[in-house]
């Protein structure tokens, strides 16, 4: 299989269109007669709208209409079911009533002939409020109204009973702040109606789910709705589910009788399109004399909105990563005046593994064991939470390989002992982990008489390389070159495909595309073996009739498939497939380990990550370039999570204060570690699917923040349990502040 295109590293087939600006993104669409919407957003986090002064805005040039809670058609809510294909995260519709649940919520929408006119008029809308006290953060929420049980809980054995008497134990609490996805491309909708048919261009990671939700909301059949998202400027989860702006744009288009474009401004990308919620996680771990875990409790609380319960399943990995007979995982939520949270790259696992993998480090030290050895001693060999074997698990090899390459064994375990000039060097490690999921999927493949193949599937390429790996799949089976394969995605008029999330796109779409390709070949064989065909005397499912490199051959006689079609004046041979989700014979997960070197310069209080070695076991790698890119990108994002990222809210009123790219700090090029070494183990997981691929988008960020925090501890002796690891948390001699 070594010269197979599966596993090779062809460049993205859509790359040229993207870098030349030819690829159309949502807001690049300008249908004839299009009008522009611009939102008016709440400037309080909690309360009621008591009045709207629209006079000045109405007089403003170019204004067509202004929507608000007293001027908005009655719609329906979506049941928000992923299984039904109509999930949204924020179930409340825009302009449903006069309540304000968070700052930056839509309170009106101005539609005008140009963007500038819409924006200018929106700023003239006067809004008066009855302001209520805002619940501004997790602590305030818990204090005000406690918590509500969440989902994803797990219990086995007796964790409490085996904690107190244990040889070594720790009881520590970690917190993580709100993080905001901040994809480069802002959310955008361009909606138009023709009669009762809605067509919408959206920056979406899930066109099929959006179609379902719109269908429920507008009470029209899905077949009357087309959602298109051929290219998206990334999403990181914020574009998995439709947000209020898309409903607002669709209504505005219907009511004004014109196509309407609505782009969510950057500050509202922090409020009305989801975020990773704030978490507080209490970890209680205990070991026996030999450093084996005997009790593990992971209790997490996350913030959610007043309108919906979103559970950040921080303990999802804790259930199965380590072997421990007595284990409890629980999730609770508390309501705050923020928009509804949503999945952000590796939801649950990213904040959850910050807590778990930091706690494992603390536990190892408490038990007097090297953190690497501690993990090797405690990794689970089977999934104890489900009582299932793992389909394929090479975490020990990943850990040992990365440790070797990193040079872990040269680490002097004594805190602050490794120095280089002004800098103190710290080594830290953490495991990483992510579930492998495969869903139902449909795809269509045509082998066409012009010698090309044409593939459609209503999944999306969110910048990760889905177009390319789908083309590789068709190429692998047909022998056609990539340049001969056209892949079309991101359009609900194609066969149903999955959302681009959960790292399940690869495992879900490739089997469907492969099956559809084989169906097309089968159809072709049918033509070839029909009366008029080149192999009229051959049985149509004969094993000796094979399709290879664009040729149908039998007994040494080959015919190009183009000639088969042309001979019968046919346009194409088509295949359609509908493949199923994963079975439950095994626990399907991906594994890996990060090793991180940090440098802390106490003289200038500067922390930087100087080296990362990560070994990842995600099954077979389909495209070595895009796969590596996913892990490297996730490592950098994890580094941002570790020491830069946090959306700050004013504790007095719940207002997000750093809602722009200058002050919401994510890593820039200069922060890239000089050395990032990604090892992809590449063991096919053939129990999971025929390609043996499990998916790679998320695992890289999991564990990164803990690896950095553990390295920081090694360098400084400071255990930072609250992200991000800002320099002031490591500094000495900070004067006390008289609180006012």
């Amino acid at each position, binding site marked *: 299989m070594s010269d197979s295109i599966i596993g090779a590293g062809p460049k993205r087939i859509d790359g040229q269109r993207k870098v030349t600006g030819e690829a159309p993104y949502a807001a690049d669409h300008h249908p004839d007669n299009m009008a522009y919407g611009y939102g008016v957003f709440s400037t309080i986090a909690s309360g009621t709208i008591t009045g709207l002064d629209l006079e000045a805005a109405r007089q403003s040039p170019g204004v067509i209409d202004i929507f608000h809670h007293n001027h908005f058609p009655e719609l329906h809510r979506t049941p928000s079911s992923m299984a039904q294909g109509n999930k949204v995260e924020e179930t409340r519709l825009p302009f449903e009533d006069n309540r304000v649940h968070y700052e930056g919520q839509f309170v009106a929408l101005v539609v005008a002939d140009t963007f500038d006119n819409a924006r200018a008029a929106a700023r003239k809308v006067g809004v008066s409020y009855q302001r209520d006290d805002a619940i501004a953060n997790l602590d305030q929420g818990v204090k005000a109204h406690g918590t509500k049980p969440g989902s994803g809980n797990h219990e086995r054995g007796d964790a409490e009973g085996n904690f107190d008497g244990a040889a070594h134990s720790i009881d520590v609490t970690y917190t993580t702040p709100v993080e905001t996805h901040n994809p480069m491309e802002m959310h955008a909708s361009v909606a138009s109606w023709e009669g009762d048919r809605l067509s919408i261009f959206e920056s979406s990671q899930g066109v099929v789910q959006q179609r379902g939700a719109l269908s429920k909301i507008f009470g029209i059949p899905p077949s009357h709705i087309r959602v298109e998202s051929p290219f998206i400027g990334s999403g990181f989860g914020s574009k998995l589910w439709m947000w209020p702006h898309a409903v607002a744009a669709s209504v505005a288009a219907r009511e004004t009788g014109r196509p309407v474009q609505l782009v969510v401004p950057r500050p509202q990308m922090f409020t009305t399109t989801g975020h990773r919620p704030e978490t507080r996680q209490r970890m209680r771990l205990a070991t026996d004399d030999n450093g084996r875990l005997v009790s593990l409790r992971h209790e997490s609380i996350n913030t959610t909105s007043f309108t919906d319960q979103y559970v950040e399943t921080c303990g999802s990995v804790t259930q199965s990563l380590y072997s421990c007979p007595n284990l409890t995982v629980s999730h609770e939520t508390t309501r705050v005046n923020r928009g509804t949270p949503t999945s952000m790259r590796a939801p649950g696992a990213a904040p959850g593994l910050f807590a778990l993998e930091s706690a494992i480090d603390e536990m190892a030290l408490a038990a007097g064991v090297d953190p690497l050895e501690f993990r090797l001693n405690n990794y689970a060999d089977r999934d104890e939470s489900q009582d299932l074997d793992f389909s394929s698990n090479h975490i020990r090899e990943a850990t040992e390989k990365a440790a070797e390459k990193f040079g872990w064994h040269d680490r002097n375990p004594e805190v602050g002992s490794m120095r280089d000039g002004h800098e103190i060097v710290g080594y830290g490690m953490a495991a990483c982990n992510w579930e492998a999921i495969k869903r139902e999927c449909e795809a269509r493949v045509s082998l066409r008489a012009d010698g090309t193949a044409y593939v459609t599937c209503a999944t999306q390429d969110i910048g990760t390389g889905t177009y390319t790996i789908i083309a590789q799949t068709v190429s692998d089976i047909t022998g056609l070159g990539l340049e001969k394969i056209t892949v079309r995605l991101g359009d609900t008029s194609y066969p149903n495909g999955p959302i681009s999330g959960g790292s399940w796109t690869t495992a879900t779409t490739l089997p469907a595309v492969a099956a559809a390709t084989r169906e097309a070949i089968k159809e072709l064989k049918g033509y070839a073996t029909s009366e008029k065909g080149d192999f009229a005397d051959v049985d149509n499912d004969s094993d000796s009739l094979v399709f290879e490199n664009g040729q149908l051959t039998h007994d040494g006689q080959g015919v190009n498939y183009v000639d088969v079609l042309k001979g019968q004046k046919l346009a194409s041979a088509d295949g359609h497939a509908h493949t199923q989700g994963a079975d439950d014979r095994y626990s399907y997960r991906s594994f890996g380990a990060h090793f991180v070197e940090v440098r802390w310069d106490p*003289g*200038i209080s500067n922390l930087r990550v100087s080296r990362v070695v990560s070994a990842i076991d995600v099954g077979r790698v389909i495209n070595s370039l895009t796969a590596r890119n996913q892990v490297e990108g996730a490592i950098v994002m994890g580094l941002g999570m570790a020491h830069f990222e946090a959306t700050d*809210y004013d504790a007095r009123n719940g207002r997000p204060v*750093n809602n722009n790219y*200058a*002050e919401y700090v994510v890593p*820039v090029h200069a*922060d890239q570690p000089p050395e990032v070494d990604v090892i992809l183990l590449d063991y096919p997981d053939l129990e999971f699917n025929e390609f043996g691929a499990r998916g790679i988008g998320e695992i890289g960020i999991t564990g990164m923040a803990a690896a950095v925090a553990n390295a920081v501890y090694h360098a400084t002796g400071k255990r930072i349990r609250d992200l991000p690891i800002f*320099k002031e948390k490591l500094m000495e001699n900070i*004067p006390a502040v008289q609180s006012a």
Partner: protein
Amino acid sequence: MREFDYARADSPRQAVSTHGSNEQAAYLAGGTTLLDLVKIDIMRPEQVVDINRLDLNEIETLDDGRTRIGALVTNTALARHERIQSDYTVLSEALLSGATTQLRNKATTAGNVMQRVRCPYFRDGVSSCNKREPGSGCAAIEGHNRSVHAVLGTSEHCIATHPSDMCVAMAAIGATVTVEGPEGQREIDFLDFHLLPGDAPEREHNLKPGELITHVTLDAPLNNGRSGYLKLRDRASYQFALASSAVIVTLDGDTIVDARVALGGVGTKPWRAHEAEKALKGQQVSESSFQRAAEIAMQGATPYAHNAFKIPLGQQAIVRNLTTLTA
């Protein structure tokens, strides 16, 4: 859109007369502050006077050894200028530590001097902010005040830092701002140019209405001076200083003959630390003398809820900069 009159000036005279003493007029240079704030509706000029055609792009060495910089010299051009790199290293380094390449290509010398604060409450358009709406109060003092708020030169009316890096270097070097106004030309000492917030934070500088900056003239470089800019922040680029220092020293052997120290990221204006300089003069190069000077520089600083760390950080910016320069 919000409408304003736009005029392109061909000479400083014409720019000044178009602007007049209209408080609602604004000169447009690179636009990286002005247009940014117009777009978020915080600055609302009724008259924009585009000065980009003015002939103010020169960097000249004057007979007395000073260096005269035209108002429109871009941050990139200034940072890359040979004489600036060699004789005013601290200025070149300060410029290159600021913003991004794209912004520096647009940003001008006068525009940088005139840039506005980054305080989120100033920029949000709704919070109480004495700078934006005099008398409304200051949301930052008891709000979120970690990154872009000061510990030096604050008042109970405003605590926003002056965000510029370039100006910190200029404060250390010493400079004169030449302006042209309705009443003719005049010069303002750079250290007097920016104002402390006091009880009128809406007044940020010493320009009279309508005055146009035409040049900034740097003092002659110190003989045998070594200089450098050290900027401390969270990420390694594209962030305003949490604390920074511009330092110039001249040595005789191990003795400090002369020193200039200015601070950024910690003050409500580009902060010249005269007392710290005095403490350094005549001292031997040593960590303890640097540390003492640094402590003096930060004396009287007022920490707020989230930015107390800037007091030790400001000291570190001074000590490390001195250490590197005298090594």
